[in-house]
């Protein structure tokens, strides 16, 4: 197959952009492999003197416990978030009540608030219900603030499911829960994939809630621990960049392996206008 000039141009462009996109990762990897004395702005592009993994080791030792915390927090939060969004989307599309559109509007608006501004009442409220300082408090926080985006995605997705299916099931005498479990849930998988990937990423990468809701370094997620790796006065850049890569690994892997399902979910209508 001969490549037309257009094709060559296209591939060149694609590779050029790919290089640009990979530039920051190169910085992180190369700096992570340098020793502290080798690190310097003026030596940024130089290869490390050796394939040294000390910084990675040091970063991993400091971060492994907090990675565990992050997993323990993110997985329940993501799963619960998915189901909350799914149920909400189901009700708002197949069981509309007078005012359900306005209700959805108010629900959705919640994702636009600046989270810095609600830190103080959040902490006070979590204190009242005795969840402050624990990972479960963080889980609850993420589930609640994930309600708007997860509901949005599922609502858009279920809007594409023909109402006739639901009507037929109602006539057949299926209950509201039954319709969900037998008809909608099996169809929801692309939606679940999109929501799960999106929520996993945002919750895993969150720093603001993580640093405010949990205070004990034993319970804090990896984003806070990573920030602490940096130090307040003298920054050990090599360890910090190595740590950043390690902390980003789970989400990176998810995008690498599940990225195509993310796309398929979007094609299936999860985030269309």
């Amino acid at each position, binding site marked *: 197959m001969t490549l037309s000039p257009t094709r060559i141009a296209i591939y060149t462009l694609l590779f050029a952009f790919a290089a640009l996109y990979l530039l920051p990762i190169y910085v992180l990897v190369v700096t992570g492999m340098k020793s502290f004395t080798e690190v310097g702005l003026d030596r940024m592009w130089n290869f490390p003197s050796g394939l040294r993994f000390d910084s990675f080791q040091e970063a991993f030792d400091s971060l492994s416990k907090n990675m565990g915390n992050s997993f323990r927090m993110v997985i329940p939060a993501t799963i619960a978030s998915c189901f909350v969004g799914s149920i909400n989307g189901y009700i708002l599309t197949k069981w509309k009540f007078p005012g359900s559109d306005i209700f959805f509007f108010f629900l959705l608006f919640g994702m636009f608030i600046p989270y810095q501004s609600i830190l103080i009442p959040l902490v006070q409220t979590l204190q009242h219900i005795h969840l402050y300082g624990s990972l479960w408090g963080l889980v609850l926080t993420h589930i609640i603030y994930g309600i708007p985006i997860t509901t949005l995605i599922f609502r858009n997705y279920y809007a594409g499911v023909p109402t006739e299916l639901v009507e037929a099931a109602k006539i057949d005498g299926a209950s509201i829960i039954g319709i969900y479990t037998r008809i909608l849930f099996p169809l929801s998988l692309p939606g679940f994939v999109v929501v799960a990937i999106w929520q996993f990423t945002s919750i895993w990468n969150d720093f603001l809630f993580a640093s405010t809701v949990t205070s004990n370094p034993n319970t804090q997620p990896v984003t806070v621990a990573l920030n602490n790796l940096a130090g307040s*006065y003298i920054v050990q850049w090599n360890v910090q960049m190595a740590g950043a890569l390690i902390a980003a690994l789970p989400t990176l892997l998810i995008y690498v392996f599940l990225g195509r399902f993310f796309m398929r979910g979007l094609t299936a209508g999860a985030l269309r206008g």
Partner: protein
Amino acid sequence: MRWKRILMSFSVLAAALLVVSLVAACGDGGAKKTPTPAGTPGTPGALSGKLEIFSWWTTGGEAAGLEALYKLYPDKCPGDVEIVNATVAGGAGSNARQVLTTRMLGGDPPGSFQVHMGHELTDTWVTTGNMEPLDALYEEEGWNDVFPKGVLDIVSYQGKPYSVPVNIHRANVLWYNKKVFEDNNLKPPTTFDEFFQVADTLKAAGITPLALGDNGIWASAQVMETVLLGTLGADGYNGLWTGDTDWAGPEVTKALETFKRMLSYVNSDHSSLTWDQANALVISGDAAMTIMGDWIEGDYKAKNFTDFGYVPTPGTKGIYDALSDTFGLPKGAPNPDAVMCWLRLVGSKEGQEAFNPLKGSICARADCDTSLFDAYLQSAIADWKTDTIVPSLAHGAAASQGWVADITDAITPFVTDLNVATFQSRLADACSEAKVCS
């Protein structure tokens, strides 16, 4: 359907990760605790429970110093106390302050928290009734005789001290690369005129005279404060914070003009560098001098650089521009007995001798064993005994946090537009906003 299988495998993966992380978390449970050996049960005064120490000391010498204190704790405070090392890094404490404020407002104070001596503590937490006075403690421990009067004044409010200083850092130090100076036949400057002569020579030789890294804007505030100090002298400088010196007056104008002139000898990319990245310029010889607090010595050590020299910043010989990390007792702190014992440790000779050599600072106490400290710190200790002590602006001792914020907000545009008149009027406004000037 394929989708079903995908969801199944996803759930299995999720469950597996959950199990793995639970196992990892449980297995590694003791990593960050510092358990203390149990005292004899029933010993009167044996402490127990948790002691949460909140700070932004996460790496390097600071973390090492903190660990050294934790190791001494069980001896000084027998019992079964579990120390929780609550730290939040970043921004020379700005992240930590955010978390601390949120916690205090949420009614969850830590046992004790790191805070700079002076108005940072007083105006934020003492005047608002959130800290316990420590005058009784100072009496018991005899600290009124062992801390210099300058420090006692700064940590006190209405005659009572509210925190215990563990260290002293000096902000008015000019560091320079000895080889660069030798190569250019220069002597370290002691006055502003000498500084500008040296700077001109260096500029002509293609070397950046003064390295500045103000990605954290406090670094510029610190340079300005040394210029104010060098121009106004100790009394004039102190008067700025009490309303006795006129911010709108000609002396201050002179200082600001000097500051402006200094900025023309600074590296152009200063806003992209942190202070330690600016220091790298001095180490490599691309720059000759930098004005920074004496924690910079830790940076030189970490980068194996020994050919540095130090002098007080121009015009400030005989003046010690001090800042200190201190610990106090918040009202409603959990386990106050354990906290009080912590404070005793922090203010004790053993505690300060263990902490400061590692941290790279000097004792706040006047009676520490000087042989434990390196050459620079010994010279600092000598100065500490004789110099006039003034509080640092950039590090929370001289002015309230709100006032410091207004000043740094005024410095930010000044560094770019160099408009002294606007700058000075904004500084005068800041003093009025702080209700110190009329």
